[in-house]
């Protein structure tokens, strides 16, 4: 039983398609496409949200949802990039370091509109550049994603501590206020969520996205179909670096100050949101729509804990447990689906 579940966790040419003719393989792929995991994630997210709404009257107003969106925005942006990297069967631990450095720079260098714009561009450039470095080492030299991004995480953490040795600094008031303001009757944080979702829906249709999915689900096949591993991997990590830099700006807005270790605590949630959202750690399956459900789950979880008057430290513990449970549940659901699919085709 355990062994079956284990092998089904690695859907690749070996386990799903090996030795089966092309027609059943197509059918199997269709079953796999109708993945139940993102749907399950949305059910979970809605349940959490309703619990929160029941505990905290007034949650269902636009303003309150806007506040929640503001709380989850940095995580959602981080998880968008993390999810794209995980689709290539990689992982990006360096997002924590980039976020720390980004908030440290924002809190020390943003003094007005001019310096804010200049340094904002610098922060985004650092994100893309570090993603390119990760992508080069992983894609070109073929190094392990976790060790490369662990090393770059350490490097960016060190730089962040030099820029801003302790928590503090401040960002201009107008910059920090944006996340709480509204445009055309809708809170800006909700607009930002909509833009992230729209960006994903657009990205999902690009050639790059198709290459990323192909590479993640079947590296050999993708290579034969002419997908350049190096370029695709590099692009994925660059997107992740850019997302981490944008997340740093959102984080600085939300806290109105800087924290050189802010990112360390967000690495696990960024992976957890992706995994809870039904994206497989072994690549090729999932997407940001499920990840949003993961972000909602994690964000409202924190607020539910708060509503129960429990110490906020419960959130940290719960995040860790949720990640492991989500990996197990995702593997289990997938195994059940595969077995159902196999039964229906054979």
């Amino acid at each position, binding site marked *: 039983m355990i062994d079956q579940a284990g092998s089904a966790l690695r859907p690749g040419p070996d386990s799903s398609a090996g030795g089966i003719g092309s027609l059943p393989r197509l059918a199997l792929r269709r079953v796999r496409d109708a993945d139940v995991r993102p749907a399950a994630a949305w059910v979970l997210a809605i349940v959490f949200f309703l619990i929160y709404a029941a505990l905290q009257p007034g949650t269902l107003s636009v303003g309150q949802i806007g506040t929640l969106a503001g709380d989850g925005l940095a995580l959602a942006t981080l998880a968008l990039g993390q999810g794209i990297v995980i689709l290539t069967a990689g992982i990006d631990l360096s997002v924590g370091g980039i976020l720390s450095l980004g908030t440290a720079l924002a809190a020390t260098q943003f003094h007005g509109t001019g310096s804010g714009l200049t340094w904002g561009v610098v922060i985004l450039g650092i994100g893309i550049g570090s993603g390119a470095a990760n992508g080069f080492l992983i894609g070109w030299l073929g190094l392990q994603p976790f060790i490369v991004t662990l*090393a770059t995480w*350490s*490097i960016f953490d*060190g730089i962040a501590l030099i820029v801003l040795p302790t928590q503090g600094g401040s960002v201009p008031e107008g910059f920090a206020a944006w996340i709480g303001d509204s445009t055309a009757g809708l809170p800006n944080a909700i607009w930002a969520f909509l833009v992230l979702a729209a960006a994903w829906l657009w990205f999902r249709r690009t050639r790059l996205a198709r290459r990323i999915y192909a590479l993640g689900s079947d590296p050999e096949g993708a290579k034969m179909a002419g997908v350049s591993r190096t370029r695709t991997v590099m692009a994925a990590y660059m997107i992740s670096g850019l997302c981490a830099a944008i997340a740093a700006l959102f984080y600085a807005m939300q806290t109105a100050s800087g924290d050189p270790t802010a990112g360390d605590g967000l690495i696990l949630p960024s992976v957890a949101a992706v995994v809870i959202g039904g994206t497989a750690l072994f690549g090729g399956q999932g997407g940001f729509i499920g990840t949003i459900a993961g972000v909602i789950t994690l964000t409202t979880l924190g607020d539910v804990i708060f509503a129960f008057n429990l110490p906020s*430290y419960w959130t*940290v513990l719960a*995040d860790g447990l949720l990640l492991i449970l989500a990996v197990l549940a995702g593997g289990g659901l997938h195994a059940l689906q595969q077995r159902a699919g196999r039964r229906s085709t054979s």
Partner: protein
Amino acid sequence: MRHLMTRNRPVVAAYVLVLVLAVVGELVAPGFLRVSHLDQLVIEGSFTAIVALGQTFVILTGGVDLSIPWVLNGAAVLLTTFAHGDNVRMAWLIPLLLLGGAVIGLVNGLGVALLRVPPIIMTLGMSTVVEGGLLLYTNGGSGGNAPTGDVYLATHRWGPLPVICLVWIAVLVVATVALSATPFGRRLYATGLSRRVSEFAGVNTATMTVSVYVISGVAAALAGIVLAGYVGQSYLGMGDPYLFSSVAAVAIGGASILGGSGNYVGTTAGALVLALLAAILPILGLPQSALEIVYGCVILVAVSVSSGRIGRRRESA
């Protein structure tokens, strides 16, 4: 013989690096190599060396243990809060804390071996669970002072050698014998090289995987105990540097991140290199946080070099 040389070349290179850094230290700060300062270096290096023991075993099987910092921190905090400065209480707490580390390692190992959770995810999740538990227990505060016996263990000398240095040497001997001269060691390398082939050869790879995480949990708890003695107290976040430093020590020591090659003699050199760098950087006027940058760069260089070497060996084979 030639085979032995090529296999140990990275280890030899790591020891050459130790010598070079020692000379550099003496050049930039005369008196760097005096005995009292070397003592200091060895003591500070020993904490990395102890956590890197567990990390070496885990990496040999192709895994990684990200839960080390918080297991270390947990042991340190629980020791200082429960012992209340009392040495008798400390005496029975230490075995319990080592057992606690073993249990956390056991859960990590079972998750990786039986439930097939990727090691990064399993140990990252575990790290966060332990962190959360510790935050709840201490309510975010610090953990109190270390008992005198613990301070003795971490800083006292027997003759010319610090006590902790003897612990390090004992660990080095045991780990080296276990890896190079026992069936356990052979099975460990086999598991790291190829899980499937090892299983065909009758190796219970699940047992091997579980045991390396248990070793890592115990080693992290031990490091937490002695580090609390060295610092004289415990505080939250004291384990944070040891994630990067443990991986860096293993990488400098020439172990392959993919598993199956490397040894603790190399990791020992890695820990010495890091201790020397930590001593040289402040002399050069660099802040302590620069050390994290160095850890990261060192990991990247070591891993790039070793992957190039393995690539060449696989091509020539």
